[in-house]
């Protein structure tokens, strides 16, 4: 598949830049934009909840499901989905009483080891491994478009639906619990949405892409705004710009899209942190030391920080 695409691209570069928006590229732009939208929304909460590891573990563990699907002869998407949700369940349940990072690591290796077993039980490699990992967004077929869009709408809608209770549960879990918002259920709901977003995107853009987009852009967005709504919108915007730049650059240079997404995400993260550090330095430099710990007219606050 990649070889054919390379040939396609090489033969069409002679006709000018207009081709970047035609033919198979339309699908790439469409899918890329949808993925960026979902990644921005889900990523906002992923970063808020400190669930970067889970956002990596669920898509990577779902690989095993693809192998299992091959083994029993069903659609890989079903296998991916089943294991993504199993991963979400494992992380949620194990993480309830144990350390969350341990729960995530053990769930991930359990899934991967099961995948290893599936592979050894069948004679074939799981299909399109390269694309599951690094994605083949430029090779998205029109038939993949409809289910991807449908699942994307579902994921985005779920994230919007859970916005308020998930916000409170993520920020003040005790208070949320007292208000009748159970922390455990919110965790499961959140991880389930991550699983849903994963299932939908891994077949088209690969785990690397969805993971990077769920981490980098939202992390950068927090540096640029204090307001939660704006941070969520900015996450989506930065994710969109990242994907568009990656597709455009990949079309131009023939380097993989995943390379650009990974590095651009890291770059925006770095820019965000740099800006944040600069802003902190700038605001504290202009304020006299005695009042630096104070807010408003409070005077010296012995308990600053």
């Amino acid at each position, binding site marked *: 598949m990649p070889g054919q695409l390379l040939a396609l691209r090489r033969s069409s570069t002679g006709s000018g830049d207009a081709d970047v928006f035609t033919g198979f590229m339309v699908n790439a732009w469409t899918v890329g934009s949808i993925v960026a939208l979902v990644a921005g929304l889900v990523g906002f909460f992923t970063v*808020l909840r400190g669930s970067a590891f889970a956002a990596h573990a669920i898509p990577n563990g779902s690989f095993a499901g693809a192998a299992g699907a091959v083994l029993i002869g069903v659609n890989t998407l079903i296998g991916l989905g089943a294991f993504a949700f199993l991963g979400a369940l494992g992380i949620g349940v194990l993480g309830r009483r144990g350390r969350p990072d341990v729960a995530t690591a053990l769930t991930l290796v359990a899934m991967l080891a099961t995948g290893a077993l599936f592979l050894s039980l069948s004679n074939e490699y799981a299909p399109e491994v390269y694309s599951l990992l690094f994605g083949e967004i430029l090779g998205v077929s029109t038939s993949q478009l409809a289910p991807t869009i449908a699942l994307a709408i579902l994921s985005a809608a779920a994230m*919007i*639906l*859970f*916005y*308020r*209770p998930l*916000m*409170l549960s993520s*920020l*003040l879990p*005790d*208070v*949320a*619990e*007292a*208000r*009748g*918002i159970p922390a455990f259920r919110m965790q499961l709901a959140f991880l389930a949405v991550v699983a849903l977003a994963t299932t939908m995107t891994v077949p088209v853009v690969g785990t690397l892409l969805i993971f990077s987009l769920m981490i980098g852009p939202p992390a950068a*967005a*927090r*540096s640029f*705004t*204090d*307001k*939660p*709504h*704006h*941070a969520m919108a900015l996450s989506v915007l930065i994710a969109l710009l990242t994907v568009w730049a990656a597709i455009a650059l990949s079309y131009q240079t023939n380097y993989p899209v995943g390379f650009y997404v990974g590095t651009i995400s890291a770059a925006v993260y770095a820019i965000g942190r740099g800006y*944040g550090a600069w802003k902190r330095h700038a605001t504290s430099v202009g304020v006299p030391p005695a009042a630096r*710990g104070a*807010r*408003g*007219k*409070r005077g010296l*606050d*012995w*308990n*600053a*920080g």
Partner: protein
Amino acid sequence: MILNGAVAREEQLLSVDRVSVSLAGREVLREVSFVIGPGEFTGLIGANGAGKTTLFRVILGLQAPDHGRVLVAGQPRSRRNPQIGYVPQKFLLDPDTPLRTRDLVALGIDAHRFGVAMPSRARRARVEEMLDAVDARGFADQRVGNLSGGEQQRVLIAHALIARPRLLLLDEPLANLDLRSGHEVVTLLARIAAEQQVAILISAHDMNPLLAAMDHIVYLAAGRAASGTTDEVVRTPVLSALYGHHVDVLRVHGRVLVVAGAAGELAETSDPSHTQTQVEIIS
């Protein structure tokens, strides 16, 4: 043992009725009973480990008592009770979190509802009103991760208060505050109780900062509680009966000191300069 006389059942905002809780084989609360009426300021006093947090969990419906029950305005406690607001001691949010003070307060209005809140003038006005009530205007647009301990307390109070509860539960708000911030918080709470007729139940291991504001006290020791007015409860015979061994109640310059004998557990002292002394001060 309830010492605060007869308050008519219907007026009781909160009624804790012979609540007993055992955790991990240890009896934490034993037949704890007290009532709180509207607008009252009550201090829940006890050393660390005395069961204050457990009692709060029972009142908030997070822990089922082994025996006894909790009634809120005459009705048994349900899973989500909007009449009770909870204010934790502090929160752990880093300065990267994109959330301002006013956003956290606004979240208190209806966080339990699904979806995103539609901004409206009414919401904005309500948030402004709360920010004024807790004197948080000065840092309303600051990120919550940058706030000091005292500022955090006030934001959490505003967050709970904006939902218009009838009872506010505060979990050791003074524990991490310096004396001055603590005093400000207590004054604020007393004002809220009086002006908005919101009952306050505040837990602490040192009753002294609360003496001026408290109407009633619930004193927890050895798993049991004595409740009533401060003058009724904080007396040598009452507390000795509660502890099960002799304690002396001393009043020194308006401060109250509860002094145990040589035997007995070392408990937290409110004054950190008193580290190891012969006399355990449990004020």
